[in-house]
């Protein structure tokens, strides 16, 4: 096979599984180099809109494809994994011995406790976190919870992509962070799961999730788009302008195949 570089622009949360997929793919495709570039999914899409090149695009929300990339940049995109929102922490986090799925908001809102999330304008995990907070306000019958959580998270604790939150915990800069379960698993972080009714994991609660909305920056400067909650899904597609369409298709087939699915599962994602 001729030498070629396959460029993959992907959501930061997919860094671990896609890196391993790339390594295995390279082993079975001599002469092929897979280069990976990570950013928040909305940031990935905006980079493509600004002219950045990529062969394969893997994002943390199919809605980003639909809103920003379809059909001009990506004709088809495929759902390949799901996940859930969890609260991650480590052994040094304040209240880590007491926190559970019933009292987490009281632990987070306690004096001196700090928590972080990613930027809703750049990263789906960011707006999904805000949606989980909204859903939690109703689920736990705690009026005002969403605003209290939002106001209690300073701008310095809002990162461009969810994977950056791991560093904040590791460095002791925050006690808790809202991340995907797969990210907590990949980085061996302690975490608590949230009730299915609010963690955006299950199609059973799709109607309930849709009651949560978050406004984010749109495609045009100054525009905002209102996003509705939905079960978490990850999607992957091929850039229309790729010069390596056969190779890109082979990579997608690998990710969708049993070997790729095993890698996704080993990194805590739910392959689908």
């Amino acid at each position, binding site marked *: 096979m001729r030498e070629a570089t396959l460029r993959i622009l992907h959501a930061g949360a997919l860094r671990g599984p896609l890196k391993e997929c790339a390594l295995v793919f390279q082993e079975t495709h001599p002469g092929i180099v897979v280069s990976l570039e990570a950013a928040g999914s909305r940031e990935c899409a905006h980079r493509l809109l600004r002219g950045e090149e990529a062969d394969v695009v893997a994002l943390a929300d199919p809605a980003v494809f639909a809103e920003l990339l379809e059909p001009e940049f990506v004709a088809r995109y495929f759902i390949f994994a799901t996940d859930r929102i969890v609260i991650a922490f480590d052994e040094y986090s304040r209240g880590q011995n007491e926190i559970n799925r019933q009292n987490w908001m009281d632990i987070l809102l306690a004096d001196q406790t700090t928590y972080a999330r990613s930027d809703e304008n750049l990263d789906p995990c960011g707006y999904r976190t805000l949606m989980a907070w909204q859903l939690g306000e109703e689920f736990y019958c705690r009026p005002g919870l969403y605003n209290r959580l939002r106001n209690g998270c300073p701008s310095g604790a809002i990162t461009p992509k969810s994977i950056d939150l791991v560093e904040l915990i590791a460095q002791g800069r925050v006690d808790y962070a809202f991340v995907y379960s797969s990210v907590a698993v990949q980085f061996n972080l302690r975490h608590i799961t949230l009730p299915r009714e609010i963690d955006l994991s299950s*199609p059973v609660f799709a109607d309930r999730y849709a009651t949560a909305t978050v406004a984010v920056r749109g495609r045009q400067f100054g525009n905002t788009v209102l996003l509705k909650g939905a079960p978490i899904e990850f999607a992957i597609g091929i850039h229309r302008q790729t010069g390596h369409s056969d190779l890109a298709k082979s990579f997608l087939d690998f990710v969708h195949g*049993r070997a790729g699915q095993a890698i996704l599962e080993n990194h805590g994602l739910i392959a689908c």
Partner: protein
Amino acid sequence: MPEKNSPDSEPSEYAVYLRGEQLLQPGLLLLLARQPMHGYELIQSLSGLSFNQEECDPATVYRNLRRMEDDGLVRSEWQTGLSGPARRVYHLTTEGERLLEMMATNARRRREQLEAFLTMFTNTRLRGGGVPLKELPLREEEEEKT
């Protein structure tokens, strides 16, 4: 050697599930017998099945679908529309249909056994509950042997 899951084979591990509370795989086969569906729809539909009391954990559903595909009970293909994401849609195979029939046969047999048990239980209660075991009726074949 009998073909896997054929009527002549040993009861498969799928069929065994009907003996317990685990009705996920029979439920998946039953839903796919009605129409092809993708995982997202299957999870939603499973939660509405009156006989399925288990929580529909998406990870469990997707892993079972993969396993059932590896075992030839279902097959999948990508469904793409004019717009929107493509999803993996599952179809029931001939082997899956055959297993579903076996499961239904086992379920009927189990229902008869449970009805017999409940009938005996009700009769025992009506008689005051203190009936010695030796006075309880035996199955026909056991009566023939004695």
